[in-house]
Protein backbone atom coordinates (compact mmCIF):
# COMPACT_ATOMS: atom_id res chain seq x y z
CA UNK A 1 0.00 0.00 0.00
CA UNK A 2 3.11 2.13 0.05
CA UNK A 3 2.92 5.61 -1.39
CA UNK A 4 5.81 8.05 -1.55
CA UNK A 5 5.94 11.73 -0.71
CA UNK A 6 8.49 14.41 0.00
CA UNK A 7 8.76 16.13 3.39
CA UNK A 8 10.98 19.19 3.84
CA UNK A 9 13.20 18.99 6.92
CA UNK A 10 12.20 22.54 7.78
CA UNK A 11 8.57 21.36 7.97
CA UNK A 12 9.27 19.10 10.92
CA UNK A 13 8.41 21.87 13.38
CA UNK A 14 4.96 22.25 11.87
CA UNK A 15 4.46 18.51 11.68
CA UNK A 16 5.34 18.10 15.36
CA UNK A 17 2.95 20.93 16.26
CA UNK A 18 0.13 19.38 14.26
CA UNK A 19 0.70 15.96 15.78
CA UNK A 20 0.84 17.41 19.28
CA UNK A 21 -2.36 19.36 18.60
CA UNK A 22 -3.97 16.10 17.51
CA UNK A 23 -3.20 14.70 20.97
CA UNK A 24 -0.05 12.74 20.17
CA UNK A 25 2.82 12.34 22.59
CA UNK A 26 6.13 12.45 20.73
CA UNK A 27 9.07 10.17 21.54
CA UNK A 28 12.34 10.73 19.71
CA UNK A 29 16.12 10.32 20.13
CA UNK A 30 17.44 13.03 22.42
CA UNK A 31 20.96 13.86 23.55
CA UNK A 32 21.58 12.94 27.21
CA UNK A 33 25.12 14.05 27.92
CA UNK A 34 27.35 12.00 25.65
CA UNK A 35 24.61 9.55 24.75
CA UNK A 36 21.34 9.45 22.84
CA UNK A 37 18.20 7.95 24.29
CA UNK A 38 14.51 8.05 23.46
CA UNK A 39 12.58 10.67 25.43
CA UNK A 40 9.52 12.86 25.13
CA UNK A 41 10.00 15.89 22.89
CA UNK A 42 7.99 18.89 21.77
CA UNK A 43 10.09 20.39 18.98
CA UNK A 44 12.41 18.95 16.32
CA UNK A 45 15.31 21.02 17.69
CA UNK A 46 15.35 18.62 20.62
CA UNK A 47 15.71 15.63 18.30
CA UNK A 48 18.98 14.05 17.19
CA UNK A 49 18.39 13.14 13.55
CA UNK A 50 21.86 12.36 12.35
CA UNK A 51 22.80 9.38 14.52
CA UNK A 52 23.89 5.79 14.15
CA UNK A 53 22.39 4.34 17.30
CA UNK A 54 20.84 5.34 20.60
CA UNK A 55 22.18 3.78 23.78
CA UNK A 56 18.87 2.25 24.92
CA UNK A 57 16.17 1.01 22.57
CA UNK A 58 12.68 2.31 21.87
CA UNK A 59 11.01 -0.74 23.44
CA UNK A 60 10.06 1.47 26.40
CA UNK A 61 7.28 2.85 24.18
CA UNK A 62 5.43 -0.46 24.63
CA UNK A 63 7.29 -2.18 27.44
CA UNK A 64 8.66 0.35 29.95
CA UNK A 65 11.43 -0.45 32.46
CA UNK A 66 8.75 -0.86 35.10
CA UNK A 67 5.01 -0.53 35.26
CA UNK A 68 2.27 -1.29 37.77
CA UNK A 69 0.06 -4.29 37.08
CA UNK A 70 -2.17 -4.09 40.12
CA UNK A 71 -2.69 -1.82 43.09
CA UNK A 72 -4.30 -2.89 46.36
CA UNK A 73 -5.37 -1.47 49.72
CA UNK A 74 -5.38 -3.58 52.84
CA UNK A 75 -8.81 -3.89 54.38
CA UNK A 76 -8.54 -5.92 57.58
CA UNK A 77 -7.97 -9.51 56.47
CA UNK A 78 -9.08 -8.66 52.95
CA UNK A 79 -7.79 -6.39 50.17
CA UNK A 80 -9.36 -4.04 47.66
CA UNK A 81 -7.82 -4.49 44.27
CA UNK A 82 -7.45 -1.92 41.52
CA UNK A 83 -6.05 -3.42 38.30
CA UNK A 84 -3.72 -0.99 36.55
CA UNK A 85 -5.27 0.66 33.53
CA UNK A 86 -3.24 0.15 30.36
CA UNK A 87 -1.57 3.29 29.00
CA UNK A 88 -3.73 4.54 26.16
CA UNK A 89 -1.84 7.75 25.36
CA UNK A 90 -1.52 8.11 21.58
CA UNK A 91 2.18 8.24 20.87
CA UNK A 92 4.35 8.86 17.85
CA UNK A 93 7.77 7.25 17.93
CA UNK A 94 9.76 9.54 15.68
CA UNK A 95 13.18 8.86 14.22
CA UNK A 96 13.68 5.22 15.18
CA UNK A 97 15.89 3.34 12.76
CA UNK A 98 14.53 0.35 10.77
CA UNK A 99 16.07 -2.08 13.26
CA UNK A 100 14.01 -0.59 16.08
CA UNK A 101 10.85 -0.43 13.97
CA UNK A 102 11.25 -4.13 13.15
CA UNK A 103 11.79 -5.06 16.79
CA UNK A 104 8.17 -4.49 17.76
CA UNK A 105 7.13 -7.57 15.79
CA UNK A 106 9.23 -9.74 18.12
CA UNK A 107 7.85 -8.07 21.23
CA UNK A 108 4.32 -8.45 19.87
CA UNK A 109 4.86 -12.15 19.26
CA UNK A 110 5.83 -12.66 22.90
CA UNK A 111 3.14 -10.51 24.46
CA UNK A 112 0.24 -11.60 22.29
CA UNK A 113 0.85 -15.27 21.49
CA UNK A 114 -1.69 -17.54 23.19
CA UNK A 115 -3.04 -14.71 25.33
CA UNK A 116 -2.92 -10.96 24.85
CA UNK A 117 -1.18 -8.79 27.38
CA UNK A 118 -3.25 -5.60 27.55
CA UNK A 119 -0.46 -3.48 29.02
CA UNK A 120 1.66 -4.14 25.92
CA UNK A 121 -1.04 -4.43 23.29
CA UNK A 122 -2.76 -1.17 24.26
CA UNK A 123 0.47 0.76 23.99
CA UNK A 124 1.29 -0.83 20.63
CA UNK A 125 -2.19 -0.18 19.27
CA UNK A 126 -1.79 3.51 20.14
CA UNK A 127 1.74 3.78 18.77
CA UNK A 128 2.62 5.24 15.38
CA UNK A 129 6.16 4.61 14.20
CA UNK A 130 7.83 7.16 11.93
CA UNK A 131 11.07 5.44 11.11
CA UNK A 132 14.29 7.00 9.92
CA UNK A 133 16.39 5.12 7.37
CA UNK A 134 20.14 4.88 7.94
CA UNK A 135 22.74 6.77 5.96
CA UNK A 136 25.53 5.67 8.28
CA UNK A 137 26.39 2.46 10.04
CA UNK A 138 29.29 1.32 12.14
CA UNK A 139 31.21 -1.84 12.97
CA UNK A 140 28.53 -2.92 15.44
CA UNK A 141 25.55 -2.85 13.03
CA UNK A 142 24.45 -6.18 11.57
CA UNK A 143 20.83 -5.67 10.52
CA UNK A 144 21.43 -7.31 7.15
CA UNK A 145 22.42 -10.58 8.82
CA UNK A 146 19.02 -10.89 10.47
CA UNK A 147 16.61 -10.04 7.69
CA UNK A 148 16.74 -6.26 8.02
CA UNK A 149 18.52 -3.38 6.36
CA UNK A 150 19.24 0.35 6.54
CA UNK A 151 16.14 1.14 4.47
CA UNK A 152 13.93 -1.72 5.66
CA UNK A 153 10.26 -0.78 6.00
CA UNK A 154 9.13 -3.60 8.35
CA UNK A 155 7.41 -2.21 11.41
CA UNK A 156 7.34 1.42 10.30
CA UNK A 157 4.04 3.15 9.65
CA UNK A 158 5.98 5.78 7.75
CA UNK A 159 9.65 5.64 6.82
CA UNK A 160 11.69 8.80 6.23
CA UNK A 161 14.92 8.70 4.25
CA UNK A 162 17.01 11.90 4.21
CA UNK A 163 17.77 12.05 0.46
CA UNK A 164 19.55 15.37 0.70
CA UNK A 165 20.24 18.20 3.12
CA UNK A 166 16.71 19.57 2.84
CA UNK A 167 14.37 16.69 2.14
CA UNK A 168 13.08 13.37 3.33
CA UNK A 169 11.71 10.79 0.96
CA UNK A 170 8.57 9.59 2.72
CA UNK A 171 7.15 6.08 2.37
CA UNK A 172 3.61 5.89 3.73
CA UNK A 173 3.18 2.26 4.66
CA UNK A 174 0.10 1.73 6.81
CA UNK A 175 -3.20 3.39 7.73
CA UNK A 176 -1.43 4.90 10.76
CA UNK A 177 1.12 6.37 8.37
CA UNK A 178 -1.73 7.79 6.29
CA UNK A 179 -3.17 9.37 9.42
CA UNK A 180 0.12 11.22 9.93
CA UNK A 181 -0.13 12.60 6.39
CA UNK A 182 -3.75 13.54 7.03
CA UNK A 183 -2.71 15.52 10.12
CA UNK A 184 -0.69 17.92 7.94
CA UNK A 185 -1.35 17.07 4.27
CA UNK A 186 0.18 20.28 2.94
CA UNK A 187 3.59 19.26 4.29
CA UNK A 188 3.72 16.05 2.27
CA UNK A 189 4.31 16.98 -1.34
CA UNK A 190 4.36 14.57 -4.29
CA UNK A 191 7.54 12.62 -4.89
CA UNK A 192 9.17 12.30 -8.28
CA UNK A 193 11.74 9.65 -9.14
CA UNK A 194 13.64 10.01 -5.91
CA UNK A 195 14.89 6.73 -4.54
CA UNK A 196 16.46 5.95 -1.24
CA UNK A 197 19.00 3.30 -2.20
CA UNK A 198 21.70 5.76 -3.23
CA UNK A 199 21.88 7.34 0.22
CA UNK A 200 21.47 4.26 2.38
CA UNK A 201 24.36 2.93 4.43
CA UNK A 202 26.02 -0.23 3.23
CA UNK A 203 25.97 -3.04 5.78
CA UNK A 204 27.54 -6.24 4.52
CA UNK A 205 25.86 -9.36 5.91
CA UNK A 206 28.11 -11.23 8.32
CA UNK A 207 26.21 -14.45 8.75
CA UNK A 208 22.95 -16.08 7.74
CA UNK A 209 20.37 -16.22 10.54
CA UNK A 210 18.76 -19.22 8.83
CA UNK A 211 22.00 -21.13 8.74
CA UNK A 212 22.66 -20.23 12.36
CA UNK A 213 19.21 -21.48 13.34
CA UNK A 214 19.99 -24.84 11.72
CA UNK A 215 23.39 -25.15 13.38
CA UNK A 216 22.41 -24.18 16.91
CA UNK A 217 20.57 -27.28 18.19
CA UNK A 218 23.66 -29.41 17.52
CA UNK A 219 25.89 -26.73 19.05
CA UNK A 220 23.98 -26.84 22.35
CA UNK A 221 26.12 -29.60 23.83
CA UNK A 222 29.44 -28.11 22.67
CA UNK A 223 30.32 -26.78 26.10
CA UNK A 224 33.79 -25.60 25.15
CA UNK A 225 32.43 -23.08 22.64
CA UNK A 226 30.01 -21.51 25.11
CA UNK A 227 32.67 -21.34 27.83
CA UNK A 228 35.20 -19.80 25.44
CA UNK A 229 32.77 -17.18 24.12
CA UNK A 230 31.50 -16.19 27.57
CA UNK A 231 34.75 -16.29 29.53
CA UNK A 232 34.93 -12.50 29.69
CA UNK A 233 31.18 -12.00 30.31
CA UNK A 234 30.60 -10.31 33.68
CA UNK A 235 26.98 -11.40 34.04
CA UNK A 236 25.39 -7.94 34.19
CA UNK A 237 22.09 -7.10 32.50
CA UNK A 238 23.25 -4.28 30.25
CA UNK A 239 22.85 -6.21 26.98
CA UNK A 240 19.33 -7.37 27.78
CA UNK A 241 18.19 -3.99 28.99
CA UNK A 242 19.35 -1.96 25.99
CA UNK A 243 18.12 -4.66 23.57
CA UNK A 244 14.94 -3.83 21.64
CA UNK A 245 13.76 -7.45 21.48
CA UNK A 246 14.54 -8.66 25.01
CA UNK A 247 11.27 -8.90 26.91
CA UNK A 248 11.84 -11.05 30.01
CA UNK A 249 10.42 -9.51 33.14
CA UNK A 250 10.14 -9.95 36.89
CA UNK A 251 7.01 -9.39 38.99
CA UNK A 252 7.51 -7.74 42.39
CA UNK A 253 5.31 -6.39 45.16
CA UNK A 254 6.09 -3.10 46.88
CA UNK A 255 4.02 -2.06 49.86
CA UNK A 256 3.55 0.17 52.85
CA UNK A 257 1.13 -0.07 55.79
CA UNK A 258 -1.91 0.93 53.76
CA UNK A 259 -1.43 -1.11 50.62
CA UNK A 260 0.88 -1.65 47.72
CA UNK A 261 1.58 -2.24 44.08
CA UNK A 262 2.34 -5.39 42.12
CA UNK A 263 4.60 -4.28 39.29
CA UNK A 264 6.65 -5.81 36.54
CA UNK A 265 10.16 -4.72 35.65
CA UNK A 266 12.84 -5.68 33.15
CA UNK A 267 14.84 -8.79 33.94
CA UNK A 268 17.61 -10.69 32.17
CA UNK A 269 18.39 -14.35 31.62
CA UNK A 270 22.02 -13.32 32.10
CA UNK A 271 21.54 -12.78 35.83
CA UNK A 272 22.45 -15.80 37.95
CA UNK A 273 19.20 -15.46 39.91
CA UNK A 274 16.97 -15.70 36.87
CA UNK A 275 16.39 -19.47 37.05
CA UNK A 276 17.35 -20.03 40.69
CA UNK A 277 14.87 -22.24 42.58
CA UNK A 278 14.07 -21.55 46.22
CA UNK A 279 15.64 -24.95 46.94
CA UNK A 280 18.99 -23.63 45.71
CA UNK A 281 18.90 -25.66 42.49
CA UNK A 282 19.83 -23.54 39.47
CA UNK A 283 19.29 -25.04 35.99
CA UNK A 284 21.71 -22.49 34.51
CA UNK A 285 24.22 -22.18 37.28
CA UNK A 286 27.25 -21.01 35.28
CA UNK A 287 27.61 -17.98 33.01
CA UNK A 288 28.39 -20.08 29.94
CA UNK A 289 24.95 -21.72 30.22
CA UNK A 290 23.32 -18.31 30.53
CA UNK A 291 25.23 -17.01 27.52
CA UNK A 292 24.15 -20.09 25.59
CA UNK A 293 20.53 -19.39 26.56
CA UNK A 294 20.79 -15.83 25.24
CA UNK A 295 22.03 -16.98 21.85
CA UNK A 296 19.78 -20.05 21.57
CA UNK A 297 16.69 -18.11 22.63
CA UNK A 298 17.20 -15.31 20.12
CA UNK A 299 18.34 -17.36 17.16
CA UNK A 300 16.76 -20.79 17.67
CA UNK A 301 14.02 -21.09 20.30
CA UNK A 302 12.06 -17.93 19.50
CA UNK A 303 12.10 -18.49 15.73
CA UNK A 304 11.02 -22.12 16.27
CA UNK A 305 8.29 -21.36 18.71
CA UNK A 306 6.95 -17.96 17.79
CA UNK A 307 8.13 -17.60 14.19
CA UNK A 308 10.16 -14.46 14.89
CA UNK A 309 13.86 -13.87 15.23
CA UNK A 310 14.85 -12.52 18.61
CA UNK A 311 17.39 -10.07 17.17
CA UNK A 312 17.27 -7.10 14.79
CA UNK A 313 21.00 -6.48 14.46
CA UNK A 314 20.99 -3.04 16.10
CA UNK A 315 24.31 -3.75 17.79
CA UNK A 316 23.38 -2.06 21.07
CA UNK A 317 24.31 -5.07 23.19
CA UNK A 318 27.83 -5.10 21.80
CA UNK A 319 28.30 -1.32 22.02
CA UNK A 320 27.12 -1.30 25.64
CA UNK A 321 28.97 -4.37 26.89
CA UNK A 322 31.76 -3.39 29.28
CA UNK A 323 33.89 -6.24 27.92
CA UNK A 324 32.98 -6.03 24.23
CA UNK A 325 30.93 -9.23 23.90
CA UNK A 326 30.15 -8.77 20.22
CA UNK A 327 27.01 -10.74 19.40
CA UNK A 328 27.50 -10.60 15.61
CA UNK A 329 31.01 -11.93 16.00
CA UNK A 330 29.89 -14.77 18.27
CA UNK A 331 26.90 -15.57 16.03
CA UNK A 332 29.12 -15.60 12.97
CA UNK A 333 31.55 -17.96 14.71
CA UNK A 334 28.69 -20.31 15.59
CA UNK A 335 27.22 -20.18 12.09
CA UNK A 336 30.61 -21.04 10.60
CA UNK A 337 31.44 -23.79 13.08
CA UNK A 338 32.11 -27.20 11.59
CA UNK A 339 29.38 -29.64 12.53
Amino acid at each position, binding site marked *: MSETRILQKKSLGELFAKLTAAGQRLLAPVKEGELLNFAEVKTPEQVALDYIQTRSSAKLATFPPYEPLLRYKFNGKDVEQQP*AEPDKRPTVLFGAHPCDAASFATLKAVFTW*DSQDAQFETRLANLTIIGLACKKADAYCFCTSVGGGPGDTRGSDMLLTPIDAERFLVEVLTPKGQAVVAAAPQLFTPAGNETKDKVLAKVAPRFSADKLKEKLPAAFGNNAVWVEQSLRCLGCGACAFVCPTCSCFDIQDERNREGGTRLRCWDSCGFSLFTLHASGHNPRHVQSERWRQRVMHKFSYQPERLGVLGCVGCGRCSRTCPVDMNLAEHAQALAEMKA
Partner: protein
Amino acid sequence: MTKMATPPGAAPAPGDKPANLYVPYRMRIAKVTDEAPGVKTFRLEFVDPAEAEKFTFKAGQFGEYSVFGEGESTFCIASPPTRKGYIECTFRQAGRVTSALADRDEGDVIGFRGPYGNVFPIEQWHGKKLLFIAGGIALPPMRCVIWNCLDLRDKYGDVSIIYGARTVADLVYKHELADWGARKDVNLSVTVDPGGQTPDWKGKVGFVPTILEQLAPSADNTIAIVCGPPIMIKLTMPVLAKLNFKPEQIYTTLENRMKCGVGKCGRCNVGKVYVCKDGPVFTMAQLSQLPPEY
Protein backbone atom coordinates in the same frame (compact mmCIF):
# COMPACT_ATOMS: atom_id res chain seq x y z
CA MET B 1 -13.46 -1.14 38.43
CA THR B 2 -13.62 -1.34 34.65
CA LYS B 3 -15.03 -4.43 33.04
CA MET B 4 -12.25 -6.49 31.53
CA ALA B 5 -12.17 -8.99 28.72
CA THR B 6 -10.94 -11.76 31.00
CA PRO B 7 -12.26 -11.90 34.58
CA PRO B 8 -9.67 -11.31 37.29
CA GLY B 9 -7.62 -14.30 38.23
CA ALA B 10 -8.86 -16.47 35.43
CA ALA B 11 -6.49 -18.06 32.99
CA PRO B 12 -6.92 -16.41 29.60
CA ALA B 13 -8.42 -18.46 26.79
CA PRO B 14 -7.07 -18.23 23.24
CA GLY B 15 -9.05 -15.63 21.33
CA ASP B 16 -9.73 -13.49 24.40
CA LYS B 17 -9.33 -9.76 23.87
CA PRO B 18 -6.27 -8.13 25.43
CA ALA B 19 -6.59 -8.16 29.18
CA ASN B 20 -4.66 -7.50 32.34
CA LEU B 21 -3.39 -11.04 32.83
CA TYR B 22 -2.03 -10.48 36.30
CA VAL B 23 -5.02 -9.76 38.54
CA PRO B 24 -5.65 -12.51 41.09
CA TYR B 25 -8.82 -13.97 42.52
CA ARG B 26 -9.25 -13.15 46.20
CA MET B 27 -9.24 -16.40 48.18
CA ARG B 28 -10.11 -16.80 51.85
CA ILE B 29 -8.05 -19.33 53.80
CA ALA B 30 -10.70 -21.73 55.08
CA LYS B 31 -8.38 -24.25 56.71
CA VAL B 32 -4.69 -24.53 57.54
CA THR B 33 -3.15 -27.97 58.03
CA ASP B 34 0.39 -28.51 59.32
CA GLU B 35 1.61 -31.40 57.22
CA ALA B 36 5.25 -31.66 58.20
CA PRO B 37 7.99 -29.37 59.55
CA GLY B 38 7.81 -26.26 57.37
CA VAL B 39 5.03 -27.70 55.18
CA LYS B 40 1.42 -26.49 55.23
CA THR B 41 -1.76 -27.07 53.29
CA PHE B 42 -4.27 -24.29 52.73
CA ARG B 43 -7.87 -24.92 51.79
CA LEU B 44 -8.95 -21.84 49.86
CA GLU B 45 -12.44 -20.59 49.08
CA PHE B 46 -13.31 -17.85 46.61
CA VAL B 47 -14.29 -14.62 48.34
CA ASP B 48 -16.64 -13.93 45.43
CA PRO B 49 -19.17 -16.80 45.09
CA ALA B 50 -19.81 -15.87 41.43
CA GLU B 51 -16.14 -16.56 40.71
CA ALA B 52 -16.39 -19.87 42.58
CA GLU B 53 -19.33 -20.86 40.37
CA LYS B 54 -17.44 -20.23 37.14
CA PHE B 55 -14.11 -21.71 38.20
CA THR B 56 -13.00 -25.03 36.74
CA PHE B 57 -9.66 -26.72 36.39
CA LYS B 58 -8.12 -30.08 35.54
CA ALA B 59 -5.62 -32.29 37.31
CA GLY B 60 -2.03 -31.18 36.72
CA GLN B 61 -2.67 -27.47 36.56
CA PHE B 62 -1.02 -24.93 38.82
CA GLY B 63 -1.57 -21.37 39.97
CA GLU B 64 0.25 -18.28 41.16
CA TYR B 65 -0.59 -17.86 44.83
CA SER B 66 0.22 -14.51 46.38
CA VAL B 67 0.44 -12.62 49.60
CA PHE B 68 -0.51 -9.02 48.83
CA GLY B 69 2.56 -6.97 49.58
CA GLU B 70 5.03 -9.84 49.40
CA GLY B 71 4.70 -11.42 45.98
CA GLU B 72 3.61 -14.52 44.13
CA SER B 73 4.68 -18.13 44.31
CA THR B 74 3.94 -21.08 42.03
CA PHE B 75 2.27 -24.22 43.36
CA CYS B 76 0.15 -26.89 41.78
CA ILE B 77 -3.51 -27.13 42.69
CA ALA B 78 -3.32 -30.03 45.12
CA SER B 79 -7.02 -30.79 45.37
CA PRO B 80 -8.90 -32.66 42.62
CA PRO B 81 -11.37 -30.96 40.24
CA THR B 82 -13.96 -33.48 41.37
CA ARG B 83 -14.26 -31.55 44.66
CA LYS B 84 -16.22 -28.33 44.19
CA GLY B 85 -16.22 -25.10 46.13
CA TYR B 86 -12.56 -24.98 47.14
CA ILE B 87 -9.02 -25.54 45.98
CA GLU B 88 -6.05 -26.61 48.03
CA CYS B 89 -2.35 -25.94 47.85
CA THR B 90 0.54 -27.38 49.80
CA PHE B 91 3.83 -25.56 50.14
CA ARG B 92 7.10 -25.66 51.97
CA GLN B 93 8.37 -22.51 53.63
CA ALA B 94 11.47 -21.66 51.62
CA GLY B 95 11.65 -17.98 50.73
CA ARG B 96 9.95 -14.63 51.01
CA VAL B 97 6.50 -15.46 49.73
CA THR B 98 6.20 -18.92 51.25
CA SER B 99 7.32 -17.51 54.61
CA ALA B 100 4.65 -14.84 54.35
CA LEU B 101 2.08 -17.48 53.40
CA ALA B 102 3.11 -19.60 56.36
CA ASP B 103 2.31 -16.59 58.55
CA ARG B 104 -1.28 -16.35 57.31
CA ASP B 105 -4.20 -17.54 59.42
CA GLU B 106 -7.60 -18.95 58.66
CA GLY B 107 -9.79 -16.08 57.47
CA ASP B 108 -6.98 -14.18 55.78
CA VAL B 109 -7.38 -13.33 52.12
CA ILE B 110 -4.61 -14.22 49.66
CA GLY B 111 -4.45 -14.05 45.89
CA PHE B 112 -4.69 -16.85 43.32
CA ARG B 113 -4.24 -16.68 39.56
CA GLY B 114 -5.01 -19.69 37.47
CA PRO B 115 -5.51 -22.43 36.49
CA TYR B 116 -2.42 -22.45 34.34
CA GLY B 117 -0.54 -25.10 32.46
CA ASN B 118 -1.45 -28.33 30.77
CA VAL B 119 -3.15 -31.35 32.30
CA PHE B 120 -2.62 -35.01 33.07
CA PRO B 121 -4.43 -36.76 30.19
CA ILE B 122 -6.44 -38.95 32.54
CA GLU B 123 -9.06 -39.75 29.88
CA GLN B 124 -6.34 -41.44 27.83
CA TRP B 125 -5.57 -43.61 30.85
CA HIS B 126 -9.04 -45.20 31.09
CA GLY B 127 -8.74 -48.95 31.45
CA LYS B 128 -5.06 -48.78 32.32
CA LYS B 129 -3.23 -49.56 35.55
CA LEU B 130 -1.81 -46.54 37.35
CA LEU B 131 1.50 -46.44 39.21
CA PHE B 132 2.08 -43.25 41.20
CA ILE B 133 5.62 -42.69 42.49
CA ALA B 134 6.33 -39.62 44.61
CA GLY B 135 8.95 -38.34 47.00
CA GLY B 136 8.74 -35.80 49.81
CA ILE B 137 7.13 -32.48 48.96
CA ALA B 138 6.39 -33.78 45.45
CA LEU B 139 3.30 -35.64 46.62
CA PRO B 140 1.13 -32.47 46.41
CA PRO B 141 1.24 -32.23 42.58
CA MET B 142 0.30 -35.90 42.47
CA ARG B 143 -2.39 -35.76 45.11
CA CYS B 144 -4.68 -33.92 42.70
CA VAL B 145 -4.45 -36.55 40.01
CA ILE B 146 -4.51 -39.44 42.49
CA TRP B 147 -7.77 -38.25 44.01
CA ASN B 148 -9.16 -37.38 40.58
CA CYS B 149 -8.61 -40.98 39.48
CA LEU B 150 -9.81 -42.46 42.77
CA ASP B 151 -12.97 -40.34 42.51
CA LEU B 152 -13.55 -42.06 39.16
CA ARG B 153 -12.22 -45.39 40.41
CA ASP B 154 -14.06 -47.74 38.10
CA LYS B 155 -12.46 -46.16 35.03
CA TYR B 156 -9.01 -47.46 35.94
CA GLY B 157 -7.32 -50.77 36.60
CA ASP B 158 -5.01 -51.43 39.54
CA VAL B 159 -3.90 -48.29 41.33
CA SER B 160 -0.54 -48.43 43.13
CA ILE B 161 1.10 -45.64 45.06
CA ILE B 162 4.71 -45.60 46.19
CA TYR B 163 5.48 -42.60 48.39
CA GLY B 164 8.57 -41.87 50.41
CA ALA B 165 10.08 -39.07 52.46
CA ARG B 166 13.28 -38.51 54.37
CA THR B 167 11.73 -39.20 57.78
CA VAL B 168 8.35 -40.11 59.22
CA ALA B 169 7.82 -36.49 60.24
CA ASP B 170 8.40 -35.33 56.64
CA LEU B 171 5.59 -37.44 55.19
CA VAL B 172 2.84 -35.13 53.97
CA TYR B 173 -0.89 -35.85 53.84
CA LYS B 174 -0.53 -38.33 56.69
CA HIS B 175 -4.32 -38.42 57.05
CA GLU B 176 -4.77 -39.29 53.38
CA LEU B 177 -2.03 -41.87 53.45
CA ALA B 178 -4.04 -43.62 56.16
CA ASP B 179 -7.19 -43.37 53.96
CA TRP B 180 -5.41 -44.74 50.89
CA GLY B 181 -3.77 -47.47 52.92
CA ALA B 182 -7.13 -48.57 54.26
CA ARG B 183 -8.69 -48.86 50.79
CA LYS B 184 -8.92 -52.30 49.26
CA ASP B 185 -8.69 -50.88 45.73
CA VAL B 186 -5.33 -49.17 46.24
CA ASN B 187 -1.88 -50.72 46.77
CA LEU B 188 -0.05 -48.23 48.93
CA SER B 189 3.61 -48.48 49.92
CA VAL B 190 4.97 -45.76 52.17
CA THR B 191 8.67 -45.64 52.87
CA VAL B 192 11.18 -43.50 54.69
CA ASP B 193 14.90 -43.17 54.02
CA PRO B 194 17.12 -45.51 56.01
CA GLY B 195 17.51 -43.86 59.42
CA GLY B 196 14.29 -41.92 58.98
CA GLN B 197 12.10 -44.47 60.73
CA THR B 198 10.69 -44.12 64.23
CA PRO B 199 10.60 -47.11 66.65
CA ASP B 200 6.90 -47.69 65.96
CA TRP B 201 7.14 -47.23 62.18
CA LYS B 202 5.20 -49.95 60.41
CA GLY B 203 5.89 -48.87 56.81
CA LYS B 204 8.87 -49.65 54.58
CA VAL B 205 12.42 -48.39 54.99
CA GLY B 206 14.47 -47.56 51.91
CA PHE B 207 14.82 -44.96 49.17
CA VAL B 208 11.91 -44.77 46.76
CA PRO B 209 13.81 -46.18 43.76
CA THR B 210 14.92 -49.12 45.93
CA ILE B 211 11.37 -49.86 47.03
CA LEU B 212 10.20 -49.57 43.44
CA GLU B 213 12.78 -52.14 42.38
CA GLN B 214 11.71 -54.48 45.17
CA LEU B 215 8.02 -54.20 44.31
CA ALA B 216 8.82 -54.64 40.61
CA PRO B 217 5.41 -53.64 39.22
CA SER B 218 4.61 -54.79 35.71
CA ALA B 219 4.78 -52.27 32.90
CA ASP B 220 2.05 -54.01 30.97
CA ASN B 221 -0.83 -51.59 30.23
CA THR B 222 0.45 -49.35 33.01
CA ILE B 223 0.98 -45.61 33.19
CA ALA B 224 3.66 -44.42 35.63
CA ILE B 225 3.39 -40.94 37.09
CA VAL B 226 6.57 -39.86 38.83
CA CYS B 227 7.29 -36.72 40.80
CA GLY B 228 10.08 -35.97 43.19
CA PRO B 229 13.33 -34.15 43.82
CA PRO B 230 15.82 -34.31 40.91
CA ILE B 231 17.94 -36.98 42.59
CA MET B 232 14.95 -39.25 43.11
CA ILE B 233 13.86 -38.87 39.49
CA LYS B 234 17.40 -39.54 38.32
CA LEU B 235 17.55 -42.83 40.22
CA THR B 236 13.96 -43.88 39.51
CA MET B 237 14.15 -43.66 35.72
CA PRO B 238 16.68 -46.48 35.28
CA VAL B 239 14.54 -48.73 37.50
CA LEU B 240 11.46 -48.04 35.40
CA ALA B 241 13.49 -48.72 32.25
CA LYS B 242 14.60 -52.03 33.69
CA LEU B 243 10.96 -52.85 34.39
CA ASN B 244 10.26 -52.19 30.68
CA PHE B 245 8.41 -48.91 31.05
CA LYS B 246 8.68 -46.95 27.78
CA PRO B 247 9.32 -43.19 27.96
CA GLU B 248 5.83 -42.57 26.55
CA GLN B 249 4.34 -44.46 29.51
CA ILE B 250 6.03 -42.30 32.14
CA TYR B 251 4.57 -38.92 33.10
CA THR B 252 6.05 -36.30 35.36
CA THR B 253 5.25 -32.78 36.40
CA LEU B 254 8.13 -30.37 36.17
CA GLU B 255 8.91 -27.78 38.75
CA ASN B 256 10.63 -24.74 37.32
CA ARG B 257 11.10 -21.14 38.36
CA MET B 258 7.99 -19.34 37.12
CA LYS B 259 6.58 -15.86 37.40
CA CYS B 260 3.80 -14.87 35.07
CA GLY B 261 2.37 -18.34 34.49
CA VAL B 262 1.03 -17.30 31.10
CA GLY B 263 4.00 -17.62 28.77
CA LYS B 264 5.19 -14.02 28.73
CA CYS B 265 7.98 -13.38 31.23
CA GLY B 266 10.38 -15.97 29.83
CA ARG B 267 11.58 -17.31 33.16
CA CYS B 268 10.38 -20.89 32.75
CA ASN B 269 11.66 -21.40 29.21
CA VAL B 270 13.39 -24.71 28.67
CA GLY B 271 14.49 -24.70 25.04
CA LYS B 272 11.55 -23.59 22.95
CA VAL B 273 9.09 -24.83 25.52
CA TYR B 274 7.29 -22.71 28.11
CA VAL B 275 6.90 -24.94 31.17
CA CYS B 276 3.91 -22.82 32.21
CA LYS B 277 2.11 -23.41 28.88
CA ASP B 278 3.43 -26.63 27.35
CA GLY B 279 3.85 -28.18 30.79
CA PRO B 280 4.20 -28.68 33.66
CA VAL B 281 3.00 -32.17 32.76
CA PHE B 282 5.37 -33.95 30.38
CA THR B 283 6.07 -37.54 29.39
CA MET B 284 9.65 -38.68 29.71
CA ALA B 285 9.65 -38.98 25.93
CA GLN B 286 8.84 -35.25 25.68
CA LEU B 287 11.37 -34.32 28.37
CA SER B 288 14.13 -36.16 26.61
CA GLN B 289 13.63 -33.79 23.67
CA LEU B 290 14.30 -30.78 25.85
CA PRO B 291 17.70 -29.30 26.69
CA PRO B 292 18.65 -30.50 30.18
CA GLU B 293 18.04 -27.10 31.79
CA TYR B 294 15.46 -27.76 34.47
